[in-house]
């Protein structure tokens, strides 16, 4: 029974928190541009509005187009169950689940690419070819990063990794982890379609990557696509902050009180990390499309150096 409640709690936290991250990022970006910006809760209003609208579906589409929003959301939610929100324990844990996490998210991306092609629009195909290029460039460094932290904790289960990291004091000051952290940060930026890889707020269809793929969606389906993307973003953020900045070792007592305190700390970390992402986005400009491989290469080099550092210096 407790595990069911725990799973439900984690899902609720992830769904409710995901749009907030976008809100914070947008707000901070607006403030760096001397604007007031939209309310932090704007994405909740948008989702509510979209969920109450019907969808327009092109006649040329197949079942893939209809099924994709559900696949996106369910893959994102599955991924959300694999990362522990409080660094006690993730609801679902088994060996190799970190690799499962990578490919559950890849499944969603795969269907998104198919759905974009399915609608037969001008920009969908462009978006999915670009997304395929970016994700294939990013994947090697993602796996190397994961193996580095896996090696350091002698496990490929996220739960064990996080428990192991709790015993490392200040992991971000250790070269192996510092380098991996930056590699993962670049991956996060690329995976969540942020500047400098993509521009989430652009209206220019020709420059879009992620936005081009959801261009044909409307109403309820669009809401699901947006929510799925937001949850995926939160999953990646959670993975990074809970691996590199574990906090549960500092919370002395267990039980409901400890859980709540842990959640609170987690919330603060998410907000802090969102601000970091926003500041990073605000201080950079979008890359020329063919410069993205350089960024992916940088990420791979960082991950690989971190990997080597582990053998040189240990954890």
């Amino acid at each position, binding site marked *: 029974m407790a595990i069911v409640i725990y799973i439900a709690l984690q899902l609720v936290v992830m769904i409710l928190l995901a749009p907030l991250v976008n809100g914070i990022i947008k707000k901070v970006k607006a403030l760096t*541009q*001397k*604007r007031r910006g939209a309310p932090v809760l704007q994405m909740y209003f948008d989702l509510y509005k979209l969920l109450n609208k019907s969808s327009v579906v092109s006649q040329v589409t197949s079942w893939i187009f209809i099924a994709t929003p559900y696949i996106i959301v369910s893959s994102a939610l599955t991924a959300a169950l694999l990362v522990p929100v409080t660094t006690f324990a993730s609801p679902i844990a088994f060996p190799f689940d970190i690799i499962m996490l990578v490919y559950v998210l890849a499944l969603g991306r795969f269907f998104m690419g198919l759905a974009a092609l399915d609608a037969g629009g001008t920009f969908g195909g462009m978006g999915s070819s670009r997304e395929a290029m970016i994700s294939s460039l990013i994947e090697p460094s993602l796996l190397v990063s994961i193996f580095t932290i896996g090696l350091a904790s002698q496990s490929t289960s996220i739960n064990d990794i996080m428990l192991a990291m709790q015993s490392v004091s200040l992991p971000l000051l250790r070269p192996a982890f510092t380098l991996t952290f930056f590699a993962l940060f670049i991956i996060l930026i690329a995976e969540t379609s942020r500047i400098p890889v993509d521009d989430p*707020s*652009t209206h*220019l269809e020709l420059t879009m990557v992620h936005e081009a793929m959801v*261009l044909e969606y409307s109403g309820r389906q669009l809401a699901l696509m947006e929510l799925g993307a937001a949850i995926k973003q939160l999953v990646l953020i959670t993975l990074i902050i809970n691996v590199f900045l574990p906090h549960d070792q500092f919370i002395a007592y267990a039980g409901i009180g400890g859980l709540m305190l842990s959640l609170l700390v987690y919330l603060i970390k998410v907000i802090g990390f969102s601000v970091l992402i926003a500041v990073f986005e605000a201080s*950079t400009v979008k890359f020329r*499309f063919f410069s993205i491989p350089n960024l992916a290469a940088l990420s791979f080099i960082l991950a690989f150096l971190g990997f080597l550092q582990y053998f040189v210096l240990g954890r």
Partner: protein
Amino acid sequence: MTIIKLKSNLLDIFPDDIHRSTLINDNEFYIQVDSRSIVKICTYLNGELGYALLTIFANDERTLTGKYAIYYGFADRKKSQLIIIKTEIAPTAMSFQSISAKVHAASSYEREIKDLFGLIPLGHPDAKRLVLHGNWPNGIYPLRKDYDLHHKPHFSKKETKFKKITGEGVFEIPVGPVHAGIIEPGHFRFSLAGEPILNLEAQLYYVHKGIEKMAESMSIEKCFYLSERISGDETFTNSLAYCQAIEKIAGVEVPPRAEYMRVLFAELERLTSHLGDLAGICLDVAYGFAAFQFRMMRGWTYLIADDLCGMRFLRSVNKPGGLRMEFLESKEKSLIDQLMKIKKELEDTVVIIKQNTMFIDRVENTGILKSAIAFDLNAVGPGGRASGISHDVRKNFPYAAYDKLTFDTPNYVDGDVNSRMRVKLDECFISISLMLQVIETMPKGPIKESLPKLLSHQVAFGMTEAPRGENIHWIMTGENETIFRYKIRTPSFCNWPALCYAVSGNIVPDFPLINKSFNLSYAGNDL
């Protein structure tokens, strides 16, 4: 070359082809030539003498002479001379010799004439429709005098054909006319091999309003308001070109104070427009900070306009014969303060963006418009000045009080987005400096002159340097103070073909950036 020398030269070389020549309005030299010899004379003027082709337009003069007339406007920019070649086409012929093969800039004008007058340019390399799309019925030509303005033709369902590029892996993407953002309509057909663009064909003209046709039934007073509404962000410069043409026909000298004030408003409009363009360039590469800096400053320029005349878009400020009101009195102090505030903010922002290497990397070497192409197509304004062509109507054909003020024309040679951005940045500072000079040196006195009754069938050019470049209006008056023909050639008309050249070889995601660096008008191109 002086007019007298040019005249004797032309008479020497083409003794049998020149019928008549007259010099009017100080610098408009009209030469009437035989329609058969138009190609060689135009080739001589453009090729041998290097006179730029400013415009070609037709006029339905069947009620006057029983014939159509085509005017070829050339400019000797060094001598501030306009040389206008006029040729008459008999209604039985309905065709004229195309000069596009020799003078490349002529291509769009000849296609425009073909669409709107039904005069066929013989020997045109690509004489497909330009202004009217495939759905416009054949045989209906809106700018002929016998076409009723309110007539609504029956549209057919024919589509426009685009140039096909074939080859392995080459595909097309159609973009627009409805876009994801709130921008003007235009259809872009890209032929691509992967991301690099092989060819871009732009189909514009979705917003044809029949302005030139509408003007023909209007009184001179009323047509002024029409000229203000040609393009929303070039209100003042268009109305100024109109006023100048009318003032030339009337032979009226505008009071000096009005001349200075016109500079002030024209430069305010240029500053507003350039700041908007710079914001657009920054926004297209997701450089939010700089984009919103420029937008904020543009907001300030709107406030200045609102402060001065109660109208942010500067409508009803101008008036043939001067300005409508004394707008500036007792506002000099606050105006100087506001301009200095913009200047300070602009200086700070420029320092920041020029140090941002990631940003400079995006704009450098993107969308290069080669100097030779820019010259052939008569690219104007910042688009031309970034490619080594230093035309500026304010210098070449000084109007208002520009000859009494000191300013430079920025000139860059690389022709990329960076150069166009720098031209616009430089011009922002120049505009501010001009406005400050105006406030300092402006004489006191009246600000308007009343117009005498205008004679019929008089012609004159009005030329201004719009924010986007050389802006040319030509007016022929009709009976009872009306307009017989009003030809407007906005800078966008020259620069759209140049944009298509600048784009090729770049990748698709860079197109919006290149497009924004030119920032051409759709509505101001499609009258």
